[in-house]
């Protein structure tokens, strides 16, 4: 363990990427960025809004090792509900191979055989206003994975990562979520999101995550967010829970 900061950073980064990606104002909702608007976070992905109700995003931090892109399209806007779908494609094999090594930062065993993996993530998001200031969002999600070639590597049996990577080896994972967004006081807001995972083809069959976040938006172009995510899940070794603090900073222009 000669480079502990590096491996700690890598692990925290990996584990908090998804958790912190909810820092953007539209994450988890059926809203999308306005045309021409850009947004990037410390952990949250780079996003840009396009005319016609489109948004494209990618994680620049992992783009080279794990090429990824996501497209979000708003289908219904106005009326009581808005409806959006989000579709992403990524290729995580190169990143996983880089993490399969001896010594510090060896997230996977060095003798792991990791094939080419193509993974997709499809979400349907619906949002509506509750009263004057609270937004309710519901989501359904399907993750699909395909391996090409010999495969011999252990699953990532850790919170956040396990349900999101299970489909790489086990073909599919499903999730449903509920999210509330609203103001607390002045520029301080809240976000509460709970997601339940079903992993019917994996050894650990389910997971539940509940995240409470406090986004603070002192200006239109900056958001700071603290969050706490509680996880409870079934892993190959049994049921386990974790509490994961997180934070993110988002800049938009």
């Amino acid at each position, binding site marked *: 363990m000669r480079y502990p900061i590096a491996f700690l950073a890598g692990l925290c980064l990996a584990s908090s990427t998804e958790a912190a990606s909810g820092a953007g104002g539209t994450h988890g909702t059926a809203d999308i960025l306005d045309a021409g608007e850009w947004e990037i976070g410390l952990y949250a992905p780079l996003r840009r809004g396009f005319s016609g109700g489109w948004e494209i995003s990618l994680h620049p931090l992992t783009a080279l090792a794990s090429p990824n892109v996501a497209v979000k399209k708003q289908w219904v806007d106005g009326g009581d509900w808005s409806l959006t779908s989000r579709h992403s494609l990524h290729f995580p094999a190169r990143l996983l191979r880089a993490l399969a090594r*001896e010594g510090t930062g060896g997230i996977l065993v060095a003798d792991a055989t990791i094939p080419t993996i193509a993974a997709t993530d499809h979400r349907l998001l619906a949002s509506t206003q509750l009263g004057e200031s609270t937004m309710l969002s519901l989501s359904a999600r399907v993750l699909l994975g395909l391996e090409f070639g010999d495969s011999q590597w252990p699953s990532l049996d850790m919170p956040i990562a396990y349900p999101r990577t299970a489909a790489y080896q086990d073909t599919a994972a499903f999730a449903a979520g509920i999210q509330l967004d609203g103001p607390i006081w002045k520029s301080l807001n809240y976000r509460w999101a709970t997601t339940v995972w079903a992993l019917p083809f994996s050894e650990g069959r389910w997971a539940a995550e509940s995240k409470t976040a406090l986004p603070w938006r002192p200006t239109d172009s900056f958001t700071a967010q603290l969050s706490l995510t509680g996880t409870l899940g079934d892993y190959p070794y049994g049921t386990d829970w974790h509490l*994961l603090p997180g934070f993110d900073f988002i800049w938009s222009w």
Partner: protein
Amino acid sequence: MNTLPLRASLLLPALLSCDATLFRTNFDPVEDALLYEAKEMTPAPTGVEDLLVINHNIKYGGGRLLFFWECGGDRYNMTDEEVTSHLDAIVEFINSTEPDILMLQEVDRLSLRSGYIDQVQYILDRTSLNYGAYASQHKADYLPSDGMGKLDFGNATLSRWPIETAERHALPLVGSYPGYYRYFYLKRHILDTEIAVPGMEDFHVVNTHLEAFSDDGTKRDQIDQFHQHLAGLTEQGAVWVGGGDLNSLPAGSETLKEFADECTAESRFEGDNYEGEEDWLDQLFTDFESLMPLEEYQSNNGAWHSYTGDASVGWTRTLDYLFSSEPWKIGEGYVMQSEAQGGYETLPLSDHAPVRGILEVNP
């Protein structure tokens, strides 16, 4: 807007925030050990005259596989079949020797490398031992090094009779390692169990596995603390058995370095060298009843060897010990090295040989 410096400076609190909740590697100075029971109880003797005590470091059910950190080793995670076949061999050994008290070191419990098999429960469910106590020596929800992943291994004490109390007493950590390294590194301890053996009052079994690598005297401190713990039990009038893998040689060892099993290939670790440690165990031999009489050892080191890193050269040094507050039954104490010495071929079971002795109950 250049956000790079801000991003870099914010990594530190990110690490700190992850530290306490993601890895969970730490222990209190004294805490309760985990207690186990066999799925089905085997009636234990009620009239006890002798106690057969065995100590064995079982190398987390790895048998003689060579792991990545060993000389010439290339193995990481075992298959479930490998783990159960190795554990079955250990179970067979236990069932053939039928110990009353079994002290184990390097027992895996819910570790990725051994297929998340709870080895304490596995052994209890297949032997006449009914009760167990376990304390972790190395535990992490996720060890991000060498692909270790989830890890929990430590010491276990198994008994035919109920374990009334079981405490984990933390031993000093290696002071020369930086704090972040210590956070993830092994946490040595003493596992003290009080066992309700019929006819014995206040009977304790004290199980430990001491530091293998330390240049700063930590191993010496751990030996001293082990000695103090045993002396404390004697002071309170307890009857006790204490021992384990002390990772130290007795006085009068003919070889202190360049052992026959030393790695000649490229290796992660330097060869063991016990020079300067020759008298570290002396106080244990002076103050307590050692299963291994020092004079016998000094006249024939080889008969008491209990470890080898290379099965092809046989046992090469003495690392495993049993002490007691009471005298051991003469002629019944030895290292079970082979069919010829101990009546069982133990080389395939682990890199350590079992040490056995008989304690007379109310002699």
